[in-house]
């Protein structure tokens, strides 16, 4: 029975992720309408066969915009986590493995960064760089580094005195060899699960920043930006906000479910 429930989570997660991927891929190949094309007569038009998700305040097809919006959001989440993970692994591995003074300094700095809400920190960075899609990626990437660094560091501390690490040191294996050929593969699982959580955080963080107007800038689309636009017409066209919100929920839910079932498989 336990096994069954696990499978449900896995299947639902896979189906939702599949839908999102399908949406993004379809948008890459061809969206039903050009996502920027405005049609004055269709302002806030409701759901119809021609426009399955309706149209927004400028008469643009929402489905087409959701397709490229989901892609932008996905891309931002991906790049953000890639930046965070790359530097997080680098910093976490070095500090965790070697310890010492360097470790103390970097970790205190890390604590300082972690003690601010990540949105606030990203806001400061955006204030320095100006708003825009790439700026959001960089700002969020930087904000994500400390938490990855901390996770990787604690794992490296756990493994650095394992007998097999000592045995390889005794064989004359270099520190780099031990860190990246022996310890890192053992940390892979932990990194993978935190990556999924990080992915969800990035989606939400992007939404929040676009909502505040400092993220993706119109006329580009991202889920967060569309949600903030839809907010103005919550009563006149509730389906706009609901549908965009639904896509975002699917995205987050799929990753949460996948990460859950992954964790259960790992035990």
């Amino acid at each position, binding site marked *: 029975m336990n096994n069954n429930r696990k499978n449900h989570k896995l299947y639902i997660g896979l189906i939702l992720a599949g839908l999102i991927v399908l949406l993004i891929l379809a948008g890459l190949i061809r969206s039903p309408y050009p996502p920027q094309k405005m049609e004055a007569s269709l302002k806030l038009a409701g759901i119809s066969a021609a426009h399955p998700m309706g149209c927004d305040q400028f008469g643009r097809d929402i489905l087409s915009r959701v397709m490229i919006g989901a892609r932008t959001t996905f891309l931002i989440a991906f790049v953000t986590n890639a930046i965070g993970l790359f530097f997080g692994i680098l910093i976490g591995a070095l500090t965790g493995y070697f310890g010492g003074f360097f470790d103390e300094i970097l970790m205190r700095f890390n604590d300082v960064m972690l003690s601010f809400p990540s949105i606030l920190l990203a806001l400061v960075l955006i204030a320095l760089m100006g708003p825009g899609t790439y700026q959001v990626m960089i700002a969020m990437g930087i904000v994500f580094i400390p938490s990855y660094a901390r996770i990787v560091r604690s794992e490296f501390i756990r493994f650095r005195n394992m007998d097999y690490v000592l*045995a390889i040191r005794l064989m004359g294996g270099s520190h780099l060899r031990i860190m990246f050929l022996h310890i890192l593969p053992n940390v892979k699982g932990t990194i993978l699960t935190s990556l999924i959580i990080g992915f969800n955080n990035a989606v939400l963080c992007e939404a929040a920043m676009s909502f505040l107007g400092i993220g993706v800038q119109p006329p580009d689309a991202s889920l967060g930006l569309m949600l903030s636009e839809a907010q103005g017409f919550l009563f006149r066209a509730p389906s706009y906000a609901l549908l965009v919100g639904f896509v975002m929920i699917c995205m987050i839910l799929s990753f949460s479910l996948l990460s859950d079932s992954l964790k259960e498989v790992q035990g």
Partner: protein
Amino acid sequence: MMLQVKDLSIEFHDHLVPETVVYDFDLQMEPGEIVGIVGESGSGKSMSALAIAGLLSRKDMRKKGQILYAGKDLLTCSRKELRALQGKEIGMVFQEPMHSLNPLRKVGWQVEEALLLHSDLTKEERKEKALQMLSMVELKDTERIYRSYPHELSGGQRQRVMLASALICHPKLLIADEITTSLDVTVQAAILKLLQRFNKESGISILFISHDLNVVKKICQRILVMQKGRVVEEGTTEGLFENPKTEYTRELLDSIPKIRKLTV
């Protein structure tokens, strides 16, 4: 004299109050000798062994005294010299067969690793040597073991694999820290025999560490008894058993179950 440790003290400096865990440790070993260290757990055996292998961090720990290996002081020599010694001259095997192999790498890869680091053999030559080494430690079905992951092997098999990987570069000194402790008695006996065979055939010196005097007496010619970080007694195995000088050694002797008569 191959190994001479003089007045070794080990102090931890990673807490506010420094903590000394080994005091004035002395040890001499001749080539081909098997020397044992016994003592209750926490008495500083592993710390001394790690220091001799040059594996204690130079940062967090202060070490006094000398560890002379073939005349070179491991505590003061350059890292490069230490590396060279570690790779070729000194091998070490640890207690936990679960933790002494990387769970994500195949056994063959791990046995070969020392060759990869210290020789310029080709891939095929390395494999051949690894298989040969696996059969030297009396593993059967070496091809299969070569391709297995550590979790697919039993504790005894893993310990043999560890021996194979520690011995593949023909070190002159093997440090065996509690290597039989987690094994059951029959496997224990087989591993001890294996160590003795290596000692006879290749003349390797062995520093054999155990909390169990009963095991140590089976293969060691000389024994050091440690208590609370100090060597409290040292002597030949017969001497120690016939005429223990300290109360502590007597207690250790008494803790051996007397099912059989002592046959030393």
